[in-house]
């Protein structure tokens, strides 16, 4: 279990902030092995700072990060895989050498690093490009190399900052598959994203961060349950004034009248609707993650 608790971080400087800017204000959450955790929040909410602290790239002012009950040190982090928001590769270094180099930095032996690199190149379809300089690759292929760099040492934990940004739909699917594979292998995966449908589709649980605090965490189902579900009824060609006295709001588009409401007797509403016209739709609407998110950070 990766546990992040009560992280606080204040950045000094900034002309309009004499005491500095508070980036993290006691953020905390935990991720189980094999869990895919989606980290969402507006720009500047503190996602990147949190991930950088987990990876030891930044120091927190207070708070702790533990992995399997022990505080994280360099030795533990060596077995983590990390893809920072700002991608970076040695542009003039050859693809295979670069992946191998990072494998070695993560503690693999020379033969292990070579084998892991060959396997990854094969799986990512980059075998033919292994001898090319990174700068000669297309952006999509550079992204794959970046992923390979994060995966080469078969990490125990994966931390990915905006891994899907800038990818085309096919590349998104490929990356999603790769992450799900790791997850099934028992690796906790944390990734941040602004693509909320993607987070909703992939993640077992979600954390919504706002202004350096975790405002909501849990499975998508939990978060939905916490929200009040609304009833949506669509009626075609209803008699005028059919919804008078019913709770909620009616919107009209062509001959379709849509009633949305959070309370009232749903059976009574259904009877009224059927009497008024042709009921096309009657159901409980689950809020999308986007709606939950907007609600949470509001």
């Amino acid at each position, binding site marked *: 279990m990766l546990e992040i608790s009560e992280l606080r971080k204040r950045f000094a400087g900034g002309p309009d902030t004499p005491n500095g800017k508070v980036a993290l204000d006691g953020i905390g959450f935990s991720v189980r092995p094999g869990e895919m955790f989606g980290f969402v929040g507006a720009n500047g909410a503190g996602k990147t700072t949190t991930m*950088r602290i987990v990876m030891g790239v930044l120091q927190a002012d207070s708070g702790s990060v533990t992995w399997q009950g022990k505080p994280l040190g360099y030795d533990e982090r060596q077995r983590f895989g990390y*893809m*920072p928001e700002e991608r*970076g590769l*040695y542009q*003039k270094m050859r693809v295979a050498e670069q992946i191998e180099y*990072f494998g070695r*930095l993560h503690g693999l032996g020379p033969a292990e690093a070579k084998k892991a690199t060959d396997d990854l190149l094969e799986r990512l379809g980059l075998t033919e490009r292994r001898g090319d300089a990174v700068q000669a690759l297309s952006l999509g292929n550079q992204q794959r190399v970046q992923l390979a760099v994060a995966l080469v040492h078969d990490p125990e934990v994966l931390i990915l900052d905006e891994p899907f940004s800038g990818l085309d739909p096919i590349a998104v699917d490929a990356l999603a598959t790769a992450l799900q594979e790791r997850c099934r292998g028992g690796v906790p995966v944390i990734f941040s994203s602004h693509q909320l449908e993607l987070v909703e589709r992939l993640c077992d649980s979600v954390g919504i961060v706002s202004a350096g605090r975790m405002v909501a965490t849990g499975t998508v189902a939990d978060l939905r349950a916490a929200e009040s579900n609304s009833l949506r009824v669509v009626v075609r060609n209803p008699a005028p004034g059919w919804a008078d006295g019913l709770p909620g709001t009616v919107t009209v588009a062509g001959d379709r009248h849509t009633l949305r409401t959070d309370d009232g007797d749903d059976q009574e509403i259904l009877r009224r609707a059927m009497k008024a016209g042709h009921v096309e739709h009657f159901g409980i609407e689950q809020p999308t993650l986007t709606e939950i998110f907007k609600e949470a950070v509001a």
Partner: protein
Amino acid sequence: MNGLMLVARREITTQIRTKGFVIGLLITALLVAAVSFAPKIFGGPTSYTLGTVNSQQLPLQAAAPDAEVTWRSFPDENAAKKAVLAGDVDAVLVNGTKVISDGEIDSQLGVLLQSVNKESRLGAAGVSIPLLRMESVGADTRYEAARAGIAVVLVLLLFMLLMSQVVMVAMGVVEEKGSRIVEILLSTVRPWQLLGGKIVGLGVLGLINLATIAVVGLLGAVASGLAADFPPGIPGLLAGVLVWFVLGYAFFATLSAALASLVSRQEEVNTVLTPLTMLLMVTYFVAFYATSEPTGTLATVLSYVPPFSSMIMPIRMAAVEVPLWQVGVSMAAMVVAVLVVLSFGATVYQRAVLRTGARLKLGDVLRTR
């Protein structure tokens, strides 16, 4: 340590394969070889072609054993004049009383002819004058010229090598900072490992350069016969230069990395390095001045003051014989300076290297953490 070695190895293997490095090394080797053969080609032993008209040849060989003298005889002064003006002969002795030449005579040749002429006349008259015996009661100055020459070459060499390696360290730091790869690197290695590995790796490349120059230079000097003029103690001097290069490099490279970590773009490297390159230039100029006056007060004092000592002490060591304790004191001071700079540089680097964007101010970096 493992991380540091991996970083160093990457620096070496990626640099050593670049065309720039290979071509640079080849050019250096060629230049050094050319320099060590130059005295033979341009200098050589002096040779004179002399003529006689109605005179006896003078016994020049005894007075100037190194000179090659060829004699020709002419039937009369007119024929001799023609040969002189055509440049066939350097000078012609006419009737044993005068010497004709094209323009003013070569001063060495003039003195030589004059004194040999006197001696042979006196000898003919039965007077013999024993030669004056020259004896020095001061330091051994037989090799002064050679030592000064070696010192000049050394100072230039050290300066160029330090400058190029120091700039490479800065470019490497900015490459990693600008491309943000430093963020992944720092999640696997500690900042001092990354910084140290880069400095060690590029330092090894500098040493490869230095070794190439030393080996090619020595081989060239032996092959051209120049080595015969070398003063004793060259291997010791080379070892000293190596140590001083390492110390000077550690000092300047660490500062360079610290300054470079303040900027995020390659274009800014030159500006941010300006104070450092100025310091290096000043060191170079003072050292160059010291080659002409290696025993002067300035050279003596600054040969103890880091970082000037890293270039001036080797100059003094080459130009004159420096007592070992003086070298020891100077090195100790430099080592202390290097340690101070290492801790300062590592602090700046660690704090600045992740703060990408606009150029950071050194003062801000030191104040905040």
